[in-house]
């Protein structure tokens, strides 16, 4: 029951404060339409604060896409290795490595991005990377979601019955054929659900982007630029850059509501995919 109360409370609080933000008497220029379609977000700078959420959404998506491009191939291949190639001993050891990676607090990944990935990996490659950039944050988020992708995809692949593999081998398939043409398609719904779950975590990730991505909200797809994500904006506000009760403060609730909607839709989609497209072999 508590879980239902929590959900209802989250939604109620967010809606109440969001409505409060959109109907603030001394800021008639803020509307739902201008919020979701505005391309400039500068609540703290300039004479007239501008609230268009698109730059924040764009920053969030940029970091998430980079994280996904890193974590999905690496995670899936590692999962294939674990489920199809590795011996029992290697598997146990690797799984504990992944468990450690999964337990590392995200603020540690943020520190890693800021003090290792940017200065020692990215900047030697190309000097255009600033101290804060979307690339380092994206890679760090990718490392963070890697264990999720790995262990969930591996579960999905191992759930494919051995008889399917044996059948394919009997028809003269190589291991490549069996893995790519039989096992992965059979476990695909689980793998896709794992990807979605991991990406949801990436979108909601806070401490890494607050440390490593910078604090400038801009509409860009350049990975070497600094971006601000929705979560990082909330951190900036709640750290006390804005007076409580002011319009900037209220805006963070609207941003939180947007974030909540996005993640909610993604988890739903994941659940539906898992249910609808699951292939049963028994």
């Amino acid at each position, binding site marked *: 029951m508590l879980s239902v109360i929590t959900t209802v409370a989250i939604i109620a609080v967010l809606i109440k404060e969001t409505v409060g933000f959109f109907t603030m008497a001394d800021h008639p220029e803020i509307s739902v339409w201008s919020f979701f379609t505005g391309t400039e977000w500068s609540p703290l700078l300039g004479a007239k604060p501008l609230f268009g959420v698109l730059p924040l959404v764009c920053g969030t998506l940029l970091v998430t896409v980079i994280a996904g491009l890193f974590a999905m191939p690496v995670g899936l291949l590692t999962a294939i290795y674990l489920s199809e190639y590795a011996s029992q001993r290697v598997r146990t050891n690797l799984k504990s490595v992944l468990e450690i990676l999964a337990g590392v*607090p995200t603020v540690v990944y943020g520190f890693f991005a800021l*003090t290792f990935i940017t200065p020692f990996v990215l900047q030697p490659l190309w000097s255009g990377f600033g101290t804060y950039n979307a690339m380092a944050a994206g890679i760090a988020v990718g490392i963070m979601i890697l264990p999720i992708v790995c262990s969930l995809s591996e579960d999905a692949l191992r759930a494919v019955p051995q008889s399917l593999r044996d059948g394919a081998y009997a028809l003269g398939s190589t291991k490549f054929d069996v893995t790519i043409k039989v096992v992965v398609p059979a476990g695909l719904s689980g793998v896709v659900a794992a990807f979605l779950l991991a990406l949801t975590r990436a979108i909601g990730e806070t401490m890494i982007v607050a440390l490593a991505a910078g604090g400038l909200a801009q509409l860009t797809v350049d990975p070497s630029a600094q971006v601000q994500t929705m979560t990082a904006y909330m951190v900036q506000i709640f750290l006390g850059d804005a007076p409580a009760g002011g319009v900037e403060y209220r805006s963070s609730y609207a941003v939180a509501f947007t974030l909540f909607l996005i993640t909610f839709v993604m988890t739903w989609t994941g659940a539906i995919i898992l249910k609808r497209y699951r292939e049963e072999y028994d």
Partner: protein
Amino acid sequence: MLGKPISQSKKMRLNRMLMIGCLAATTIAVLVLSALLVSIAIEGTSSLSWSFLTSFASRKPSQAGILAPLMGSVWVCTICAVVAIPVGISTAIYLEEFARRSRVKRLIQLNISNLSGVPSIVYGILALVAFVRFFGIRPSDEPWTFGNSQSIWYLQIPFGPSVIAGGLTLALVVLPIMIISSQEALRAVPPSLRQAALALGSTQWQVVWRVTLPAALPTMMTGAILSMSRAIGEAAPLLVIGGFLLVFQTPANLMSDFTVLPLQIFNWSGRPQADFHKIAAAAILVQLVVLLAFNSIAIIIRQKLQRPLQS
């Protein structure tokens, strides 16, 4: 299904490429972990000392320590454990053992898995409104007070950004994980055990207390410990509710101000001076040692207590 015919040598080449690709990916995962640990160890070990563990934060990096965040983490996580573990386990028992298969149950189930996907910072916002301000029913400068301000149990409503608000916030964050892992533990108990107990004339309660729960407990404990290790590393929701980054005392009662290790790490790593990065790395080392301890306890419990239960 296997497409147009391809030569044997190409087939073998593809075969080898896949294996190399998989190996490479796995190596990346291991390499990244080592790079993470090594770079932090190199940066952090020089500042790690006994006085680092026993002194308070300071403007000078050489004199700063982590006593306040360390004790803050202990307080907050204890409160979180006291709330989340019993509530999580009893919810799981209700859902698995007592609730009938119905639309309501399905809805609750879906809801719990959705909640586990909600970003932790959003929980922070809920907690800010619910625990810190108590929905604004009482102004925070004239709170209702309970008990003596010298005692541990001294309580004010609304809570304000205090230890208890922090603990409850973390409990909200880890509850879905806790419920799901306990449910899985209960589901892993073979139904034949329950049926046998019922056949011997036990009531439903007796089955739960004497058969199912003891059988599922080791797995549940593992889940609980892993949830706690999640809680101990969580910074974002606590940043939203409190934002105390510099605290110069250890918590004395439920109403004390607090900071936790991840928040202190965040604060130090966000500063431009390299010296602060060094002590941030040292604090991370302490945090990782605590986490490793948690994980090893979980693994030991899993290996020692898990009796094979086959039906």
